[in-house]
């Protein structure tokens, strides 16, 4: 599965106050978690969202990897943001992201061998996660380093939350366990389909519908 950054990434929730460069570090952080949640609001990073959410362990290790790569990439891009040429910026983003992902991959293989074996196929997927390239584009290439860090951590937490919601449902219904520990009664027939790819689409669709229904309802009651 590959992804493309289709069009401009949405920059919605908190509009920049007039006279300022953009949202502050705190605003970026808060926005990333729920108002601009990467999965439910921006629909970015759908590839890992669908592919690695059949268990909580895999999903959370994925979220940890994304956190590291996103923070590093945002810091670096923010530091060199005044040197970037508009038509070469995507190339620089991809180059940086791929480097950090490779460093993570080698580091895991050397110092956390068991974890690295478990993550194996998931680590290279971080390179094509367009959540990261989108944050480099939207925030890090335009704002200062502290703001970029706030943004990276907030978005990563939002991503982790999104992955956890899908992986939790899929692992409990599909394997009857949570973080690998059996929690459903022995009589529970594991719904194998929830572990297979269709389960990812069904869960994501239903949860997305729930989130939209809830936000539409709370908007309605406010207005």
């Amino acid at each position: 599965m590959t992804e493309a950054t289709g069009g401009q990434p949405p920059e919605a929730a908190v509009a920049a106050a007039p006279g300022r460069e953009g949202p502050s570090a705190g605003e970026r952080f808060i926005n990333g978690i729920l108002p601009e949640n990467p999965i439910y609001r921006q629909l970015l990073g759908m590839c890992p969202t669908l592919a690695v959410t059949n268990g909580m362990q895999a999903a959370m290790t994925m979220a940890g990897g994304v956190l590291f790569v996103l923070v590093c990439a945002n810091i670096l891009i923010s530091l060199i943001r005044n040197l970037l040429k508009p038509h070469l910026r995507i190339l620089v983003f991809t180059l940086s992201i791929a480097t950090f992902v490779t460093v993570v991959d080698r580091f895991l293989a050397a110092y956390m061998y068991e974890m690295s074996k478990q993550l194996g196929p998931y680590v290279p997927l971080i390179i094509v996660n367009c959540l990261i390239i989108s944050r480099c584009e939207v925030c890090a290439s335009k704002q200062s380093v502290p703001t970029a860090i706030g943004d990276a951590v907030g978005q990563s937490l939002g991503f982790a939350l999104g992955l956890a919601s899908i992986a939790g449902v899929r692992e409990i219904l599909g394997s009857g366990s949570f973080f690998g520990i059996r929690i459903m009664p022995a009589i529970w027939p594991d719904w194998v389909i929830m572990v297979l790819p269709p389960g990812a689409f069904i869960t994501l669709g239903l949860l997305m519908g729930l989130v939209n229904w809830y936000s539409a309802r709370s908007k309605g009651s406010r207005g």
Partner: protein
Amino acid sequence: MTERRESMKDNYIVQAWLVILLSLCFGGVLAGVQIGLSQRIADNKLAETMGQIPQLVPGAEEAASREDEVAGQRVYRAYAGGEQIGWVIPCGGQGFADRIELLVGVDVAAEKITGLYVLEQKETPGLGNKIVEDGWRSQFAGKTTMRGLAVTKAGAKTDSEIDAVTGATISSESICQIVNQSLEKMRGGLIAAAGKE
């Protein structure tokens, strides 16, 4: 005309200086990481291989095992009480998604499989990657190496049949093929060595 083209070329290189510089820096960083960590990664793999020998050849002592070569492939002799009781053969081949690397334990005559371990795989999470689970791997113990192993979906009955992983027939077949090929080579090597003695 040539002058103009050359100034364009100059221009592109000038424009791309950051990309070039970053590529060099990143290349250097990755080379450094690779140099610094490759030995450790190789050690991890070797430690994992050695650590698996007592499970792959039941009764073998990890400390007493040593590396050897049979028919051009790297193997490990598994010893217990000073006597060789089996072999551990590292082997690999194409799986469904990517290369699969295995360790196969056999008895000293290489006539019976005593264990199977998956060192590396990138099979489909949730389906093909079930090949790493104990429950599936344990059925290899006790299978014969005299006839090639075959995958079945109807429940293994003979000592050369292997139950496929549900939803991952290709991964299962790949493993049987890798095991068959490497054992055939191993047995050929042993017979040739015995003939020489």
